[in-house]
C-alpha cells in the first residue's frame, strides 16, 4: 500500500505554480502529473533511496559526462569507455523554479551509450534540479528523466549490497 500523500506547504504550491507551462519554459516541468509537487519529490526520492543512491551522485555523473562532452564544441565527442556526448549551448539563462539563487545556463547534453545502444538527453537545469532538489520532472513531461533510465544509460554504479 502506498504512503498517504503528504501535506503540501504554501511555499511548495508557489514552486509548483512556477513549474507550469509558459512560466519558465514552454512546456513547464510537470507534464500531465496531477500529483502535488511534494508527492512527486517524495516518491522519486524513495526510488533513489531504494537503489542505495543519492540525487547528488546521479547529478555528479551527469555533470562528469557534460564536462567531458564540452570538448566537442557542440559536436559529438567520444567519452571513454563507450559514450558519445554532445553539449550544445544557446544564449540565455533560466531561473530555478525552486527559487534557488542564480541562473542556469541553457545547455542541452545528449549522451549515447554505444555499448547498450541507449540514448538520453538532459540539460543543465536537470543537473541542478536533481542534484539540489531531487526533482526529475513530473510524469508526462516530455523532459521527465526516469531514474532507472538515467542510471542504466549513464552507467551510474550501484553500491555493492
Amino acid at each position: 500500500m502506498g504512503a498517504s500523500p503528504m501535506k503540501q506547504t504554501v511555499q511548495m504550491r508557489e514552486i509548483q505554480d512556477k513549474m507550469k507551462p509558459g512560466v519558465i519554459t514552454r512546456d513547464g516541468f510537470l507534464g500531465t502529473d496531477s500529483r502535488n509537487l511534494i508527492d512527486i519529490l517524495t516518491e522519486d526520492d524513495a526510488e533513489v533511496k531504494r537503489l542505495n543512491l543519492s540525487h547528488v551522485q546521479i547529478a555528479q555523473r551527469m555533470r562528469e559526462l557534460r564536462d567531458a562532452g564540452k570538448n566537442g564544441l557542440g559536436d559529438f565527442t567520444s567519452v571513454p569507455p563507450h559514450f558519445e556526448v554532445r553539449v550544445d549551448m544557446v544564449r540565455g539563462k533560466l531561473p530555478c523554479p525552486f527559487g534557488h539563487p542564480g541562473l542556469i545556463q541553457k545547455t542541452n547534453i545528449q549522451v549515447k551509450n554505444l555499448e547498450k545502444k541507449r540514448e538520453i538527453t538532459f540539460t543543465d537545469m536537470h543537473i541542478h534540479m536533481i542534484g539540489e532538489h531531487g526533482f526529475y520532472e513530473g510524469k508526462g513531461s516530455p523532459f521527465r528523466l526516469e531514474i532507472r533510465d538515467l542510471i542504466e544509460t549513464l552507467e551510474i554504479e550501484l553500491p555493492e549490497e
Partner: protein
Amino acid sequence: MAPLAQLLIGIGAISAVTTVLAVIMVIADATIANYGDVQIKINDEKEVTVEGGKPLLGSLMEEKIFIPSACGGRGSCGMCKVKVISDVGDYLPTELPWISEEEKAQNIRLSCQLKLKKDIAIQIPEELFNVREYECEVASLVDLTYDIKQIILRLKEPAEIKFKAGQYIQFQVPEYELTSESVYRAYSMASQPSRKNEVELEIRLVPNGICTTYIFEHLKEGDTVTINGPYGDFHLRDTDARIIFIAGGSGNAPIKSILYSMMETNNTREALYFFGARAVRDLFLFDEMKELEKNLANFRYIPALSEPLPEDNWKGETGLITDVLDRHINSAENTEAYLCGSPGMIDAAVSVLTKNGIPEEKIYYDKFA
C-alpha cells in the same frame, strides 16, 4: 429576543466591523504607504522625480531609463542590478539570492525589488542613457537554416535606433497562448548602424523555449513587437590591428553587423572570419560572406565544417573551428580577436589564441551567457 433578530443583529455587527476595518486600511494606505514624490539622482548629475512606493526598475522605465531585465521585473533573472549610493536599508530576502558578497560590499541592489520610499542616489553605466523602447513592425521572416530564422523589424516609434555594431537588444515576447506574462530575451543585432530604421536579428530555435516558440510558430509579418536597447560592450575597437573573428551558429549576427559597418566606412584593416558549423545545412549566408570578400579591402571568410555529410561535397576546411583556427594563425603581431558563441567555444578559442601569442586583453567576446 427572537433568534432571527439575533441573527440579523450579528450579521449587522460583523458587517459594520469589516466596513470600519476596510476604511481604516484605505486611509492607512493613502497616508502611511503614501511616500509622496521621490527624487532619483543618477550618476551625480541627472535627477528625476517619481511617485514613491514603486520599484526602482519600473520607476526608471517610466522615465525612459531602461535597466536590463529578462523577466520584466519579477525578480527571477537577477539582471537589473544597480549600484546604490545612498542608504536604502537592508537587503530584502528577495534580493539576497542574486547578490554576491562582493556586490554587497559595493551596495549593488536588485532594482526590481527595491521600493522607493525616500530620495535615492544611484550609479548606472552611461550607455544605458542611450537605451530606448521601440515599437516595431515585423517586416520579414526568412528561414536561414532548419533552425535559424532571420527577422527584420521596421522601427515605428521611435523610427530610428542608434547603436554600435556588435550590440544587442531585448525582444519582448507578449502574452500569448503559452504565457500569462511577457518575457524578454536578448538577441544580437545583425544589421549595421547605418540601417537605423530597422533591426535585423538571427534567431535560433531553442527546444522548449518560450521566446523562440513564439517566433517560430506564432509571429507573422505585419505583427507589432516591442524591443529595447541597445546593450552590450561587444564592438570593434578603434585601432589598426589585424582582426580575427570567430563565431558559430547565431553567433554570426554581431560579426555580420561589424563586417558591414567596416565595409561602409571603408575600413581597410585585415580581417579573418572563422565560422564553425557541422554540415552544409548549418552553413548560412555563405554567398553573402563570399560577396563581402570582394567588397571589403582585406577580408577572408573561412567556414569550417566539423561533420560534413558525403552529399555535401565539401571542399573547404574541416574539423573543430578551434583546430582550424590553430592551423591558420601564423602571427600574433598587432592582432585583436572578436568571438561570439557558447562559453565552451569561446573558452576553447581563447585558449588557442593565447597559446599563439595573442594577449587576453586583446580578445573580446560575447558569450551566450
